[in-house]
């Protein structure tokens, strides 16, 4: 019955291969503490419950899948909720056109292995159609995804977008519901959210409105990594420590890429790094780390001294309220 599950590739030593991760057969960080194991079971069961509620309450839901770690966890949870049946929703990726190539390859491969339909809509389409106008050629396309996402929702008539966002990521998300209402403009209004009690989610909508559904709301970054460890989930290799040329700017590292404008005093060096979040190249920053296996990442996350988005996302650093502003206009 696991025929459609995410397969884990054989261990490989090639850190830059897309067939990572090299999962050793015996966990080196030891089995999770009994408490941690029970926490994961609890979180998993809650997420499965939420996914099934979303499938039941909406007529045309879609699961957002980027190839990142959170959405890869979402796919495993969807398997747990619906296999041996097909998923009751397609997968959607809003591609800025500036994602890491290996993540895109991973995305396509996983969707194919699962045998589920993947819809890709690109920010470039929105630019070409004039729906998005760039202020400059080098502008980050991250925030522009909102237009493309809302257009995709309108194009397919989706009434729910299921995503892997977590409340611990950011303070605007900390106040968001598990079933999070969007008006007919796709907007989130933090003052007029529906009260959400027990496990009783109100999924009622009028035409043109939609819901964002967040089954991982109560998960933390550590929970996600422990789940990836427990389920032996494959991920794009750039989540694991690897050598990479980076531009050193103060205490942040920028990936060296045509898409990342460099300053004159940025020093280019080769460092051993990994990515804690993966998104648009122009705003995703690596951190120094020697954690090359999932067990080492779990151990490192336990002792993490930086918040997940703190040194890893340029988009959250422009102002203290960046995420809040983007969410209010329809960002995920």
């Amino acid at each position: 019955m696991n025929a459609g599950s995410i397969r884990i590739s054989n261990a490989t030593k090639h850190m830059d291969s897309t067939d990572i991760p090299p999962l050793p057969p015996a966990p080196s960080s030891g089995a999770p503490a009994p408490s941690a194991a029970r926490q994961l079971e609890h979180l998993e069961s809650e997420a499965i419950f939420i996914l099934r509620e979303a499938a039941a309450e909406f007529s045309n839901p879609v699961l957002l899948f980027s190839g990142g770690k959170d959405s890869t966890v979402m796919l495993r949870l969807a398997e747990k909720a619906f296999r041996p049946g097909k998923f009751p929703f397609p997968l959607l990726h809003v591609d800025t056109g500036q994602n890491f190539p290996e993540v895109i390859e991973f995305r396509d491969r996983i969707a194919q292995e699962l045998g589920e339909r993947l819809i890709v809509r690109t920010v470039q389409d929105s630019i070409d159609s004039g729906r998005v106008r760039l202020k400059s050629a080098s502008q980050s396309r991250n925030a522009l995804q909102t237009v493309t996402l809302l257009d995709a929702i309108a194009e397919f008539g989706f009434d729910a977008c299921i995503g892997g966002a977590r409340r611990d990521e950011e303070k605007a998300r900390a106040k968001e519901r598990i079933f999070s209402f969007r008006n007919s403009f796709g907007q989130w209004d933090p003052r007029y959210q529906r009260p959400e009690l027990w496990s009783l989610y109100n999924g009622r909508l009028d035409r043109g409105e939609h819901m964002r559904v967040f089954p991982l709301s109560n998960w933390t970054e550590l929970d996600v990594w422990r789940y990836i460890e427990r389920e032996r989930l494959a991920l794009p290799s750039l989540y694991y420590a690897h050598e990479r040329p980076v531009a050193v700017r103060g205490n942040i590292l920028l990936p060296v890429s045509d898409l990342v404008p460099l300053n004159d005093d940025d020093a280019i060096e080769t460092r051993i790094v990994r990515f804690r979040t993966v998104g648009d190249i122009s705003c995703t920053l690596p951190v120094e780390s020697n954690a090359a296996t999932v067990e080492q990442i779990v151990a490192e996350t336990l002792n993490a001294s930086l918040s997940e988005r703190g040194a890893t996302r340029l988009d959250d650093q422009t102002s203290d309220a960046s995420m809040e502003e983007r969410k209010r206009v329809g960002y995920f």
Partner: protein
Amino acid sequence: MAALTAKTAEADIGVLRFSTAGSVDDGKSSLIGRMLYDSNSVTSDRIEALERAARRKGETEIDLSLLMDGLTIEREQGITIDVAYSYFATPQRKFIIADTPGHEQYTRNMVTGASTADAAVILIDARRGMTLQTRRHLYLSHLLGVAHLVIAVNKMDLVAFDQKAYAAIARSVEEFTRAIGAERFYLVPISAKFGDNVVHGSARMPWYEGKPLLALLETLPPAILTHHSPFRFPVQLVQRLAAPGGGQIRQYLGRVESGRVRRGDEIAILPGGRTTRVRAISTFEGALDHAEAGKSIALEVDDEIDIGRGDLFSAPLLPARVDRQFAATVCWFADETFTPAARYLVKCGTRTVAARIAEIVHRLDVATLASEPAPETLKCNDIAKVSIALASPLAFDAYDENRATGAFILIDADTNATVAAGMIAPREDAVPTPAAAGFDAGL
């Protein structure tokens, strides 16, 4: 086959959800900030941001309450928007905090936070003692069935860590909890500002012999013993699969909300009332002999019965009640007052049915605990005993017996807003109502 004496699953799921409520003055944000900080749950970049903020203001100590800092819109308007969730873990437990502000929508927020909480952490300012807000939070937490009431007497530094001041507050808390029928509570004298009895003990209050707050939260016994309640399984979804030898298999997807189910068990399908046997229990990992409360599973049954979303699988000897009416306590959330003419929906478990409020029996004054005669209508923050009539039969339990099948939300069928939360009363409280009639079809 599983032995009859199969070990009951661990009731402690390793997660403790607790709610906090109150205004900034109580030091609530400082307390949560202190717990996060002293349990090493705050990352260095956030501490640096706090240090920068302190330097800007010319202060020598960082303000831990800023860890709970809110949204731009909240800072601009000086308000706090309903419930914020935060997370931290110690080697013993993962904690989920539902932090609810005490402004004008206090009932809605406190009730929301309490609905999923195992414990309520209630702050009292040692200088002020019990306030209306303390009483509200204690009462609502008890009403929502929160298992553990934990009262933190804060700002002990401002009363010179005086045991007498603490004892006086302890007496008033005891009086009030007795009045509302809460059997027990925990009381801890703390100073969130200086950390006394939050994560670490306090040398300045040697007279206090109990645990610091965090150690208490780490060791509170599991809240809800759903394993010992009768089996309940609300059907979320029906999945049709091709059978290996042709034909179709129907799987009923859902979560065991209480009790346990074994392969071969007889189950009642409510509200219809037919019975059948469990043919198979499965998860993604494979077939199971049995499943316990809390587990999301797929069930197959022996007989071909019309079963759909909203049906409740139930232990046949201890079945849920089936009725077209029930008495309940509701907390009214909407800015709009209740109107008898409005069309409402009750969502209970996975079933949504058309409903109306047949009668308002009385309103409860949370401050005095007095029942007031039935008001004409219900307005925001009201708590009232009502009688609800349903357009079609519903299977449910009393909230006291089963949170999952005894709780409901009331949805305005026209605006889709969640206007109230409700807890179904035990049968003996049932108020006779005229038969449900006159429903607008086509909902």
